[in-house]
């Protein structure tokens, strides 16, 4: 257990919630994403076995993926440039689509994109774009394409399970029930008074919502979602349960 906590506290990238995770007895796994350096993510909590966490995820679970890679782009030239990089773009704003390698691409407006890696912290598109942009910042981006780094500014939570929509109904004004809010839809809205981007991204048959919100207030959002989940017996889950869904 102590070696697992060491991974979380010594990694180059830490989630803003890592103290919460340690208090909850999280077991971390190392993650080398190739773009942002070594990091750690919660594998599971306490003495939960794989099956217990999977059952929790299918019922109602909250996971923190804030250390996984993600990035964004904005500008009138961004959609054409992203398509030239081989990224499949959603046709309309406020829609998201999965790439073949599991990268989630959300179109936040006609000219703004958000990319998030798969559950192993890997994404071919993010890695190849990061290589061209990290060395010289924006200078290697074409005209009218601007990078919007999201790894540090935004946290990434996943709320999943059959009671997830009911939980969100307590903290969010948008109707996110599965029959009203289809898989791949995006809502940029207020969640427990915190502005965020909410993407429905089902994991197999399990209803699942990704929530990207300001990292400076994610502890409040984490606590608020736990408060909302308590009524439905929701609990924190690790990333392994999401992979198993």
């Amino acid at each position: 257990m102590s070696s697992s906590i060491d991974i979380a506290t010594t990694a180059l990238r830490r989630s803003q919630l890592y103290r919460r995770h340690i208090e909850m007895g999280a077991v971390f796994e190392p993650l080398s994403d190739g773009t942002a350096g070594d990091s750690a993510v919660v594998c599971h909590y306490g003495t939960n076995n794989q099956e217990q966490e999977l059952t929790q995820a299918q019922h109602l679970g909250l996971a923190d993926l804030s250390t996984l890679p993600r990035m964004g782009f904005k500008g009138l030239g961004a959609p054409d440039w992203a398509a030239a990089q081989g990224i499949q773009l959603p046709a309309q704003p406020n829609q998201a689509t999965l790439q073949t390698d599991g990268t989630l691409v959300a179109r936040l407006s006609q000219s703004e994109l958000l990319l998030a890696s798969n559950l192993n912290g890997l994404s071919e598109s993010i890695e190849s774009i990061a290589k061209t942009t990290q060395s010289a910042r924006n200078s290697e981006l074409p005209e009218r394409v601007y990078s919007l780094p999201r790894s540090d500014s935004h946290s990434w939570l996943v709320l999943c399970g059959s009671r997830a929509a009911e939980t969100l109904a307590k903290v969010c004004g948008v109707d996110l029930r599965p029959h009203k809010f289809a898989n791949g839809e995006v809502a940029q809205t207020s969640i427990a008074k915190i502005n965020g981007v909410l993407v429905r991204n089902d994991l197999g048959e399990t209803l699942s919502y990704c929530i990207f919100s300001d990292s400076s207030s994610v502890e409040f959002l984490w606590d608020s979602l736990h408060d909302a989940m308590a009524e439905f017996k929701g609990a924190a889950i690790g990333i392994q349960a999401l992979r198993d869904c």
Partner: protein
Amino acid sequence: MKLLTCPLNGLRNITEFTYGGEYHPMPDHQQASSREWAEHVFFHDNAAGVVIEWWCHSASSYWFLAERNTISDKILRTFPASEIFNQRIDFNPLPELTSTAPSTPPPTATQKGES
């Protein structure tokens, strides 16, 4: 709860929005006097009736325009700013203002001065 329709995000609670002031057409920047600029930047009409206003959807930082009746507080329509701002404006000064060289005196005066 009041509701407002964001052109990008659809119908949302009014608490998701921030008011951004009255919309005024910008005066011709090459011709406008200081007085006209001051009117445009600092002064507001505060009209009773139908006005156009800037609003921002905070969750997506999306600025758009809304037509609102300030007497009844009814929103008549909302629309993207690109309906009005549909071409790029380059703030180039008038040609004579870009020249730093002193103005050339009339030819006759120069000739007189040299002689």
